[in-house]
């Protein structure tokens, strides 16, 4: 996706006149002054008035949507902190917070970052001439941030690896499965199963794999593994195997990301040692009511004990508290895969299981609960 020209980023289209938001004077949301002089007009102007918190102007009208958005993972980036917390001690948090501010917080998402502009991490700018898009653009919003793994897998950008069947055949975009209520951290999805009394006790969690699977394959594929399902593999493996074990193909893994601030420019930068495609089945460390599976697909994350050494020594002193081969949900679903071609495509095939020999020696402890000690026997 080519970056926008400076004038493109701020050009308001004629279509904005038909947008209900176009009925308001610009200064109502953005501040500044209604003045023909640019500098005067821009004084005190807020470019993105949809920032989270009390100053979010969107909440003036969209209070229901905004109510819990601040706690959403897009706004709070709690998923990152979940892992940083797990791998560190509180004494190291000040340095990790500095690191986070330089390298990670740029992905913090406001209402405008999804519904009006491209995210700032890819240069910002209006997606559609300031028209407020109810459905964010898959290419200019979602995969602008979620590009290197999810976007590439879903759209089939890896050579020789097909894109996700939901895109190739059904032309489904991200929002087809990842509904707005989930992005906004609304309880609308939870209300489908839980009573109002139960809702008060629900914790939205800090990781995308906390709580109910949203989305879940079964929400559309309702008959899988049920009484009317004629596919015996579904009946046999329903709660033992994550759907992706049989229905994904090779996906991205990465090694050793390090971050620092440039002495030359003062800008933060990163370096990732290696990126490759793999397919491994590991044991499920997140086993619970919502994810009862014994086996799941896992991808290698680029966490390294020295990832943040620029900011201090041994900042991830509890590195082994979280695996580096992580529960994954690759976005390259296929109906037919090498794994589901026959029983013994998996059974007795150690090549596709995460056995100890495939894990770096320094990471064995971290992945002790993921490594498959004994491959299921051949049939």
């Amino acid at each position, binding site marked *: 996706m080519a970056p926008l*020209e400076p004038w493109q980023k701020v050009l308001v289209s004629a279509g904005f006149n038909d947008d209900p938001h176009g009925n308001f*004077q610009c200064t109502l949301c953005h501040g500044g002054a209604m003045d*023909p002089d640019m500098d005067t007009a821009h004084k005190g102007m807020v470019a993105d008035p949809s920032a989270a918190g009390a100053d979010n102007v969107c909440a003036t009208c969209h209070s229901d949507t905004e109510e819990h958005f601040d706690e959403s993972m897009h706004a709070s980036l709690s998923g990152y902190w979940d892992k940083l917390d797990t791998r560190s001690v509180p004494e190291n948090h000040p340095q990790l917070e500095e690191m986070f501010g330089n390298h990670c917080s740029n992905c913090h998402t406001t209402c405008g970052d999804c519904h009006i502009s491209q995210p700032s991490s890819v240069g910002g700018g209006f997606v559609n001439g300031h028209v407020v898009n109810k459905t964010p653009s898959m290419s200019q919003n979602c995969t602008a941030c979620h590009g290197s793994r999810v976007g590439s897998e879903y759209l089939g950008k890896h050579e020789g690896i097909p894109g996700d069947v939901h895109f190739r055949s059904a032309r489904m975009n991200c929002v087809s499965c990842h509904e707005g209520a989930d992005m906004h951290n609304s309880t609308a999805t939870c209300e489908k199963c839980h009573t109002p009394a139960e809702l008060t006790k629900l914790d939205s969690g800090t990781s995308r794999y906390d709580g109910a699977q949203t989305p879940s394959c079964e929400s559309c594929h309702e008959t899988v593994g049920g009484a009317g399902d004629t596919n015996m593999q579904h009946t046999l493996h329903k709660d033992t195997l994550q759907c992706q074990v049989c229905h994904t193909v090779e996906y991205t893994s*990465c090694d050793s990301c390090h971050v620092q601030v440039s002495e030359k420019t003062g800008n933060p930068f*990163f370096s990732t040692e290696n990126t490759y495609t793999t397919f491994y089945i590991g044991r499920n460390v997140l086993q619970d009511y919502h994810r009862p599976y014994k086996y799941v697909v896992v991808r290698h994350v680029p966490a390294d004990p020295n990832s943040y050494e620029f900011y201090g020594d041994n900042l991830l002193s509890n590195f082994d508290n979280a695996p580096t081969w992580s529960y994954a949900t690759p976005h390259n679903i296929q109906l037919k895969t090498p794994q589901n071609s026959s029983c013994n495509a998996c059974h007795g095939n150690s090549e596709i299981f995460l056995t100890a020999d495939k894990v770096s020696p320094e990471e064995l402890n971290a992945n002790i609960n993921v490594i498959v000690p004994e491959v299921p026997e051949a049939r």
Partner: protein
Amino acid sequence: MLKQLSFIILLAFLAILIAGCGSNQAATTAEPASQDAAVVEAVATEPVSEQVQVEQPAETAAVLPTPVTDYCLECHSDKDALVALAKPEEKAESESSGVG
């Protein structure tokens, strides 16, 4: 005789006067009840007519509103103006390597 003539003339004048008032009432209403309503109406509408006379300048203003210039949109919907005003972005050298 003169007295009688004067009295007749006075009566005739009064008759003419009374006839003129009656015709005015007839113009506004035919029945006593509606006549009352008309009277009420006439009384009620008098202030309105005054108000209408007062409001006419405002109504004229509403028909021809004073245009308000939206300076923000005037600039931000003009591509040529934005191209002319845009400051060239200095692309910072990125030292990042690998997939982010």
